[in-house]
């Protein structure tokens, strides 16, 4: 497998302006879900997390530890009960004003607009600017379509006619259309066959290298995790237990981490990490 990606300051990394090196800062965040007649459910408790510019950070945690909720809070789709989230030094609510130019999100199930075809889905954010000529927008969307490994023949298909892997790719193309400096991915490789998942990792790696994106990724796929992440953050006991490189995280004694990474699947994936020669064709 390839080396962990070195962040490049060109392009996206500097795109948002501002001098500090963190793309996202989360301070003392609490998330409590209240429903009438039930115990309030504490999902995050005093959670702190810094996401540096140009890195690929993977969020890891058991089911129901609030990984997706955290992504939604970074996007400003949900408000934390307490605490602060800032994205490029501003509260996430201001993100929505800049929209697709600041942040791209790949939703777990794609969330393609079912009334539009593939090309219109990808072009949507650009078209909404109402500035650029249609021809340029279409060309740009076609380029994105092929960057994610889909041929031009898919451009006029409707989302309902696409397979799961294709939906993921189109959704990624849509998230990338504005070259936003921050890309959030929710389970990018879940539901893909190993071949597509590998392609997807290669694609993300090359995009990250060329565009200098900051990528935040929620994943359960250990291969993807070791393959792409520059850092890993582990969510357990309602906060971030440890952040660091794969080796640092795996050395942590927390029982969840020991079970997660040092179980059979984790060891196999980690072995592949240490023996690049064992995987051919990369």
């Amino acid at each position, binding site marked *: 497998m390839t080396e962990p990606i070195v962040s490049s300051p060109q*392009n996206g990394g500097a*795109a948002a302006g501002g001098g500090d090196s963190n793309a996202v800062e989360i301070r003392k965040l609490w998330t409590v879900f209240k429903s009438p007649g039930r115990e309030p459910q504490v999902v995050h408790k005093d959670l702190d997390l810094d996401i540096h510019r140009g890195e690929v950070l993977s969020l890891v945690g058991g089911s129901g530890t609030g990984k997706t909720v955290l992504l939604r809070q970074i996007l400003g789709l949900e408000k934390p009960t307490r605490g602060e989230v800032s994205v490029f030094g501003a509260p996430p609510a201001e993100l929505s004003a800049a929209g697709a130019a600041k942040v791209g999100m790949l939703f777990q199930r794609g969330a393609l607009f*079912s009334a539009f075809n593939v090309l219109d889905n990808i072009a949507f954010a650009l078209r909404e600017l109402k500035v*650029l000529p249609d021809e*340029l927008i279409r*060309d740009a969307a*076609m380029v994105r379509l092929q*960057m994610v490994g889909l041929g031009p023949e898919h451009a006029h298909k409707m989302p309902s006619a696409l397979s799961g892997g294709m939906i993921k790719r189109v959704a990624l193309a849509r998230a990338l259309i*504005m*070259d936003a400096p921050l890309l959030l991915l929710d389970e990018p490789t879940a539901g893909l066959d190993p071949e597509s998942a590998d392609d997807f990792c290669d694609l993300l790696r090359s995009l990250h290298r060329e565009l200098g994106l900051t990528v935040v990724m929620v994943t359960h796929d250990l291969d993807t995790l070791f393959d792409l992440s520059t850092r890993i953050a582990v969510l357990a006991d309602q906060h971030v237990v440890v952040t660091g490189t794969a080796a640092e995280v795996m050395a942590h004694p927390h029982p969840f981490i020991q079970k997660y990474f040092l179980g059979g699947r984790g060891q196999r994936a980690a072995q592949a990490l240490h023996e690049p020669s064992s995987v051919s064709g990369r």
Partner: protein
Amino acid sequence: MLDADQPRLERPSADAVVVQGCWTALAFSSQRDWKALAAMLAQTPADLPEWDLRPIGQLDHIGGQLLWNHWQHRWPAKLEMSAPQRAVLEQVAQYTVREPQEPRPTPWDYFLRFANRGPHMLETARRFVTLIGQFVLDLGTMLRAPHRAPWRDISGHLYSTGATALPITALVGLLIGIVLAYLTSQQLRQYGGETFIVNILGLSLIRELGPVLAAVLIAGRSGSAMTAQIGVMRVTEELDAMRVMGIPHGFRLVLPRVLALAVAMPLISLWTAAAAMLGGMIAADLTLGISPGYFMQALPRAVPLANIWLALSKSAVFGVLIALIACYHGMRVLPNTESLGRRTTSSVVISITIVILVDALFAVLFKGVGFR
């Protein structure tokens, strides 16, 4: 006023172009900057030999695309740029293709589409008849083994389509009753036939307006909900999941809804008629001085009991039709939002139309029943 980030071109000599500013989607999103840039590009011939991209602050794929399109998909003779810029431009160059063109429909295609309408309508009729047939079969299954019937679903739908519809139907009924009584009282007073208001209100509200008004309200309220509910189940593959578990859609989805509405509809229509009578009674008291006591006394003489039976049976038929049409459209939703919207609309429009048609049919068939 020139901002350093504004994308622009400079021409130091006749053959050379220096590209400056931020060439990103974000920079292009300002209408003013974009217009200025488009004008500059229009004045710059595509085949100038020397381009210098190095002063560009940022170049993203949209900016690259703009340059590449301006160069008419050819590299300029002399191009100065940094490595990351080259990477972006090379990617754009590699992947720029013509968008595949859809063949335009010919008149023959239009004709075929038009000609296909006949078979399509037949197919729709066949499907609807199948749905009714399936419903009758399911009803038979249920009567043979009542302990296996979806009673819980039936009672749930009875509540959601019946009990929760009571406030709105009462309000609409009451207001219609008041309006009708006010209008007729004006006319009746001219002829001195004030007491006939009992006959007019009694017959029209109980026999016609109560059932039709309730059916129209329920078609809009519960029919649309049924279509949307089943339609979303189609979109989220819940229908397929049910089929895989061997649970027939007709028995678990259609039957409870149809039965619940068949029971709820007559009750709602009586309730609506009662509310309308109350409104009429109040208005008659205020405008004509006909006391509620007299009204109640005169009502049984003016409206024979047969009218109530007619209204009840009519409403049961309306209920069955509304639920069947709603379920039919719900089952036919395709997995996209547009189809869901269209099907919900047609479910409501068609069921209201059918209710009024069937009401006319009842009026003709039972013209000798319930009059004195």
